[in-house]
């Protein structure tokens, strides 16, 4: 006898079958049926204070665990509030499954209460989406959604289910084989292309390995480091790939791009070969595309064929999974070496890079009298934690400094919103990361502007017992906007002042069930952090009133060539 279930119970059963441990969400009218069986389920539900927060929690969870993050919301405003996290996950290739309630099928199209055309609205911000109109389709839709989210180029998938479909019954059957005739992502790289790639690498005297977020999505760090060492490839890690190779590794050049360091930027500019792995030649990396790496041949490895040739023509394109292809390259290179091949001499290139590193280090100056510099706070957190933490950032100056000054030694310890640049990402994403990795220290490094966008999720954190740390870098302004107004709008500051005293961050934190701390001067930074790190039973917010006039350097102005990098404030025209 097949078991008879409601659509809602079948949905929860399907989630259990996908080994879902936790769902982040906010209930509401149309999704109500699904919130009943979840009470009896092994799936933990974490009640966010806003659907955007729930979506970013799912993203932080996915980032930290490598599993699919799951978010649930109701129809209409619940679904529309998910659009930002979905597009964020789309841009950064984060596997998320979003489940939304919809008004009953009989009401669709009648402008019913809390109706929105979720399927249509979410289409361009998801890898794929579903409107399930037959209750018997629920198990298959969920199975396909998880498959699509987690394979190929990962991304968000939304499943919209009308309320009447959730209430109808079906005879439960485990979903059959996935039938997606138009979806067959490549995994292994074409052997001929792999051989051609090794040919180019052998011939190159100024190569750079350009590692992007795809390396981390494919768990390819170890393979990457092994290959970089074998082929003596200096390696840059994009904002999405920080930690793919330890920053302390002699071949690591750090972050390239708009706020990258001089060596990483210039190495790419002067290279005769770029080996791009899981990277998409984003405008923040390339600067003016026609002036980017003008002498470099390109090997482009990506699981998404559409990325290859989108911005820069590849001399050797290889479609497939990043780790698998790096391993293929390693194997092929080893074979060649066995047969007597050897790399072009890289000594002078490596020495040049080494000299650039020495001559143009990232730097800042902390006056002991203050004001506090964000870079100093970041370095102090690193010192006191030994770097053993997952760092989550918002978007803006604090994010760039965190990426620059935190020495990343392990993969998946840096979580941020890269492609979409979503302010407010840090607090909810940190909550998601802490749920995934409860034994790790999770620290959100956030700006005051970002913090004010999603801080209510700290209520979620304290009530659900998710003890994250949040370092609020309070420069009392929208710092990155201010920096641009200073540099490109003649110091005419418009709508960037957040004031230094409102809100009272300590009081605000306490009101949400967190510990609130404040370091007023540079000398208080260390001791305050020590206090914060000693708390393990609830979330802590530490406010650092920071220099409101500091600017992030190096900087390649938008639309400029990477040759015109401004290394420090002294280089300003």
């Amino acid at each position, binding site marked *: 006898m097949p078991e008879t279930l409601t659509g809602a119970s079948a949905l929860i059963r399907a989630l259990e079958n996908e080994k879902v441990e936790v769902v982040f969400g906010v209930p509401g009218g149309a999704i109500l049926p699904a919130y009943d069986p979840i009470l009896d389920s092994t799936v933990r539900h974490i009640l966010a204070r806003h659907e955007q927060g729930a979506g970013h929690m799912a993203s932080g969870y996915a980032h930290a665990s490598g599993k699919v993050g799951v978010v649930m919301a109701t129809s209409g405003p619940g679904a529309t509030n998910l659009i930002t996290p979905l597009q964020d996950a789309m841009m950064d290739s984060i596997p998320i499954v979003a489940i939304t309630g919809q008004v009953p099928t009989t009401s669709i199209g009648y402008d019913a209460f809390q109706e929105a055309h979720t399927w249509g609205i979410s289409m361009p911000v998801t890898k794929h989406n579903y409107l399930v109109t037959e209750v018997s389709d629920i198990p298959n839709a969920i199975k396909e959604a998880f498959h699509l989210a987690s394979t190929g180029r990962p991304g968000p998938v939304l499943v919209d289910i009308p309320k009447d479909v959730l209430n109808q019954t079906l005879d439960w059957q485990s979903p059959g084989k996935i039938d997606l005739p*138009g979806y067959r992502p490549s995994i292994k790289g074409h052997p001929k292309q792999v051989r051609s790639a090794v040919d180019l690498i052998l011939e190159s005297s100024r190569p750079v390995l350009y590692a992007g977020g795809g390396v981390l999505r494919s768990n390819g760090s170890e393979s990457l480091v092994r290959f970089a060492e074998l082929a003596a490839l200096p390696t840059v890690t994009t904002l999405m790939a920080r930690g793919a190779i330890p920053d302390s590794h002699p071949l690591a050049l750090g972050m390239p791009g708009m706020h990258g360091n001089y060596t990483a930027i210039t190495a790419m500019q002067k290279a005769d070969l770029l080996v791009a792995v899981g990277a998409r030649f984003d405008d923040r990396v390339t600067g003016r595309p026609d002036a980017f790496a003008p002498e470099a041949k390109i090997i482009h490895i990506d699981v998404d*064929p559409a990325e290859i*040739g989108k911005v820069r023509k590849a001399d050797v394109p290889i479609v497939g999974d990043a780790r698998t292809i790096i391993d293929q390259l390693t194997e092929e290179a080893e074979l060649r070496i066995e047969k007597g091949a050897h790399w072009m001499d890289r000594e002078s290139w490596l020495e040049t890079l080494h000299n650039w590193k020495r001559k143009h280090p990232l730097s800042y100056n902390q006056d002991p009298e203050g004001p506090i510099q964000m870079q100093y706070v970041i370095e102090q957190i690193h010192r006191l934690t030994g770097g053993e933490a997952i760092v989550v950032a918002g978007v803006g100056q604090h994010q760039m400094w965190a990426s620059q000054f935190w020495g990343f030694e392990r993969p998946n310890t840096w979580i941020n919103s890269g492609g979409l640049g979503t302010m407010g990402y840090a607090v909810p994403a940190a909550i998601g990361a802490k749920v995934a990795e409860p034994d790790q220290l999770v620290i959100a490094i956030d700006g005051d502007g970002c913090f004010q966008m999603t801080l209510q999720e700290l209520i979620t954190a304290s009530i659900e017992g998710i003890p994250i740390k949040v370092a609020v870098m309070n420069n009392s302004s929208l710092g990155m906007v201010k920096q641009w107004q200073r540099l490109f709008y003649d110091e005419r500051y418009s709508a960037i002042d957040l004031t230094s005293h409102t809100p009272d961050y300590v009081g605000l934190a306490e009101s949400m069930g967190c510990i609130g701390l404040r370091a007023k001067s540079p000398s208080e930074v260390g001791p305050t952090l020590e206090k914060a790190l000693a708390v393990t039973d609830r979330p802590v917010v530490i406010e650092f009133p920071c220099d409101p006039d500091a600017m992030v350097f190096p900087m390649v102005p938008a639309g400029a060539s990477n040759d015109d990098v401004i290394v420090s404030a002294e280089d300003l025209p």
Partner: protein
Amino acid sequence: MNHVISALVENKPGVLARVSSMFARRGFNIHSLAVGPTVDPNMSLITIVVDGPEMEQIIKQLYKLVNTVKVTELGPEEGVIREIMLVRVNSDPTKRAEMIESASVFSARPVDVGAATITFEISGDPEHLSNFLELMRTYGIIELAQSGRIALPKDRKTKRHTTASTKSARMDPS
């Protein structure tokens, strides 16, 4: 330059919206689009005419849609390409016979005849239709409706026997 793309997609609700949304999102221009069933009831064929140089990206982005099974670009010599058009033209009763006769050279049929107008139906490749329009212009076109282009790749074995269009007389420019 116009390119003809033939996309075999799963016959599922909303698949056309996915295709057109992707084109809009990526800033690709659609010149015309036609969608219809295939011999396999699970599949539909979308024929898209696009302008622009970004063919490689367009094809890759089409493939990226989960419901897209196969994408073929058809060059002018590689496909049988057709459009259908209805044209209503002024028709003085004294000229009616002459018009119908010259239309027949294009294999265009009168499908509606009124007191002062004739409506012709014509199908063929785009050049054929445009030649016919040029002829009709001399009588005065009142309105017209035109379908999107549809196409099938030529069978290589029988390529030589495929007609370019309905055998038609070119307009004599004089």
